[in-house]
């Protein structure tokens, strides 16, 4: 048990509204592509959309493709329930995101970029358009041939998955594609494409401004820099917070909990539930920390106190997946229905408690065989909730 309460390290980088966008861009564009790529790689920045792929490497791989037409896409689909950090970033510091896109475009050789904006965020459009006009003027002044357009999303959660997003932009049904090939090779319109989360692009601005070294000072091994979190649930202070990566869940709960925290869901519906007994042994970041478990998150941190029924929590997640699965692949489409019906049957006593073990095996199959991240990650919340709160599932 930790006895000393440690104040979490709040960061103020992303939302700091600096007006030096043109300068930063001018400097970045003046540097060689190799230099910028090295800077990005050295920063250790990993994608903030959930999967945590190294951003510098993504840019590098796309830059290496010998193809005339390429694209940069900003993923602003933000479909995870309870998450609204990308909306905040696009509202308060859109120029940082656009600058990140422009530098990426120069490096990989793209002339066209898109912001794939969640349908519900339509109200952001007038402001974004104004911002885009200003930004395009700056690009003209700096002599960079690059234009960004806004593309309105269709409203389906799965369209946030990068390959489904491309399909949807191409006017097709939003269904994830087979991988490989990856977007760095074959993305939007079958051209090499960098697709990054809103926050990832905003961080790239920070790196370009302050340098990789400064960025690396934040966070821990393999999880560098800061991250914007959407804190919700049983907390007296819900909202958006920029925190240093690598914190333990215990420290997080000490800061944000209501004193009666039973569990924290890290990473939304597709993330993991951390029960109280694991708070100290679990940290927030990407895989590869030396000790304990490290959990990645797109930004959602949901706190549950002891009044919450974990059965209801799981039920809600499964409801969500059963509906939001694109439905194309068997393990995910049917698996989600079985999990949802299964826990209900156990609760009602129509199936024995041991049926939960059978469902756990099913989630293993889903993890191993589903076509995309959605179906593969249903197992996360299912197994972490069922294994830690088995009694609540039965009685």
């Amino acid at each position: 048990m930790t006895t000393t309460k440690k104040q979490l390290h709040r960061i103020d980088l992303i939302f700091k509204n600096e007006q030096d966008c043109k300068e930063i861009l001018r400097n970045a564009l003046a540097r060689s592509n190799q230099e910028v790529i090295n800077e990005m790689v050295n920063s250790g920045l990993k994608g903030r959309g959930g999967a945590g792929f190294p951003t510098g490497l993504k840019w590098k791989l796309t830059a290496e493709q010998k193809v005339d037409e390429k694209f940069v896409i900003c993923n602003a689909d933000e479909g995870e329930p309870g998450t609204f950090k990308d909306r905040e970033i696009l509202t308060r510091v859109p120029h940082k995101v656009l600058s990140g896109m422009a530098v990426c475009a120069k490096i990989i050789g793209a002339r066209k970029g898109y912001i794939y904006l969640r349908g519900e965020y339509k109200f952001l459009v007038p402001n974004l358009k104004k911002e885009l006009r200003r930004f395009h003027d700056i690009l003209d002044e700096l002599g960079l041939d690059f234009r960004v357009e806004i593309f309105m999303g269709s409203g389906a959660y799965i369209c946030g998955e990068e390959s489904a997003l491309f399909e949807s932009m191409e006017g097709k049904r939003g269904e994830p594609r087979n991988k490989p090939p990856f977007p760095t090779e074959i993305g939007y319109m079958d051209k090499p494409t960098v697709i990054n989360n809103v926050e990832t692009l905003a961080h790239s601005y920070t790196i370009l401004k302050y340098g990789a070294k400064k960025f690396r000072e934040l966070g821990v091994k393999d999880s560098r820099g800061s991250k914007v979190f959407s804190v919700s649930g049983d907390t007296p202070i819900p909202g958006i917070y920029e925190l240093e990566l690598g914190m333990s869940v215990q420290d997080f709960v000490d800061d944000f909990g209501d004193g009666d925290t039973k569990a924290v869901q890290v990473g939304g519906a597709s993330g993991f539930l951390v029960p109280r007994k694991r708070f100290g042994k679990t940290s927030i970041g990407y895989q590869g920390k030396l000790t304990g478990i490290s959990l990645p998150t797109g930004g959602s941190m949901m706190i549950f106190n002891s009044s919450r029924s974990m059965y209801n929590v799981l039920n809600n997640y499964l409801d969500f997946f059963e509906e939001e699965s694109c439905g194309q692949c068997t393990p995910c489409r049917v698996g989600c229905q079985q999990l949802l019906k299964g826990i209900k049957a156990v609760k009602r006593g129509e199936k024995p408690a041991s049926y939960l073990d059978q469902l756990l095996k099913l989630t293993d199959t889903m993890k191993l065989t589903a076509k995309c991240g959605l179906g593969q990650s249903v197992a996360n919340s299912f197994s972490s909730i069922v294994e830690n709160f088995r009694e609540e599932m039965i009685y």
Partner: protein
Amino acid sequence: MSNMVNLTINGIAVSVEEGQTILEAAEKLHIKIPTLCYHKDLCVAGNCRVCVVEQVGNNKLVASCAMPVSEGMEINTNTLKVRNCRKHIIELLLTEHNEECTKCYRNGHCELQELAAEYQITNQDFIDLVPDKNYTVDRISPAIEKDDSKCIRCQRCVRTCAEIQSVGAIAVAHKGSEMKISTVFDRALDEVVCTNCGQCIVHCPTGALTEKSYVEKVWDAIADPESHVVVQTAPAVRIGLGEELGFEPGTRVTGKMVSALRRLGFDSVLDTDFTADLTIMEEGTELLTRLKRALVEDDPDVALPMATSCSPGWVKYIEHKYPEYLPNLSTCKSPQQMFGALAKTYYAKNVKVDPQNIISVSIMPCTAKKYEANRPEMKDSGYKDVDFVLTTRELAVMIRQAGIEFEKLNDESFDSIMGTGSGAAVIFGATGGVMEAALRTAYEIVTGREVPFENLEILPVRGLEGVKEASIKIEGTVDDWKFLEGVELKCAITNGLENAHQLMDNIKNGESFYHFIEIMACPGGCLGGGGQPYPVDDEVRMKRMQAIYNEDSDLPIRKSHENPEIVQIYKEFLEEPLSHKSHKLLHTTYVKREQY
């Protein structure tokens, strides 16, 4: 030469071309990996996931149909992990599935059933999801039935309809647990752009898409002592039927088929080949007449290219998608419908049977023919010209039901009249066949000489390519046709509606000019029709095609105009091609339809 990639599968080394998939590499080693959504004719979907295998070093399983090989890859197809996952996936599919196999049309011919048998799925551990589903069954179309409760959502039909046929009548609707295969506004297939081609049926692994069966109706007719039941068989049936009854693809079973039909109890076993020859006479003359009007009379209203009209799937397609080209469509009915109209007139008179008592049945490689027989205008004999249309598959069902040991049957010959066909008629069953048959006759009419190809084989129009072009220079014309002297007759041939779509767009844009185009809705022509046995791929289609051309070259008469029954019918009944009587019985009209 392309790069070779080395990998091992189950410890066995194999080397395949870069870009191939694990599934293809395994095939080379004769290691079978189960598949459901995969089909050689279609682009890879990777959605059923039964083909998953283990890749050493990858913590997920990979879909072997979608995963390209890479150097040094180590694959295992039969580990405990793989087997357990596959079993789970099959079990999951079955929980969504109305698994009443004994009451299912595809019982015994179903890929899902086969897989369930292979993996011995005898347990029902998971919850049956069917009671909570709102599955619908669409039985409105006269040709095709769609039963959502049998659908495994592999999207083979959707890809078929879009990629091969460029129709897009069916698509995926909704997501999650509600995801299903649907039409625009969930209308019945009969009320949308669907051409009834049946390619989706041939590509569907389960009983979700099937033909509407008329087997019982035909048994009833045969049993009725008042009825005189005549049956006609299309060219492609005789080279496809064997596949359903224990023969290798590409086996010709014409004589056994005739013998079986007689044993089933049909009163007269006749041949659509006869009206295929008749089609050549009518359509050939129509083409020459159009050319004369265009070249001699400078008639601006004459529509060229003239397009063939014997594929009812193509006819419905053009009615929906290119209605402005309806004047280009030959007015000739399909051989099936010509036969129907003659069965209740010419034939009835000849055998002295009251046409009212004639039931005319046709055996077709095609589901669109079921629809065609039900078109309201197809009643020129004064009755419904063709009463029931069965597919090749349905004929096989009847033969099995009748307890006929098909393999043991002796060869028998068609009855007469309307039972003789030429080699030119047989090749109607292959893409390019109508063109070749028409050229054999038209060239001879115009020049008095045989087409200048060895053994009458017009090779440029043969084969499975999407669009074939041929041109033939007309020289040494006889007096009546001097206006064609020196004309280079330009022709094009396509199979599969996606190719037809390309060709029509080329014509529309003015990129290509032709006098005559042959279009068949199905890949390979009728031999690959929606009523033919499954499974099918290019290899099977090639074998069937070879069988058709062998049938042609073995026949004593190879040209339509030399068919003695054709000579006879013009002499005794029709007078001449495009006569008043021909027009009444053998020609038809078309209607413009909605785009969707």
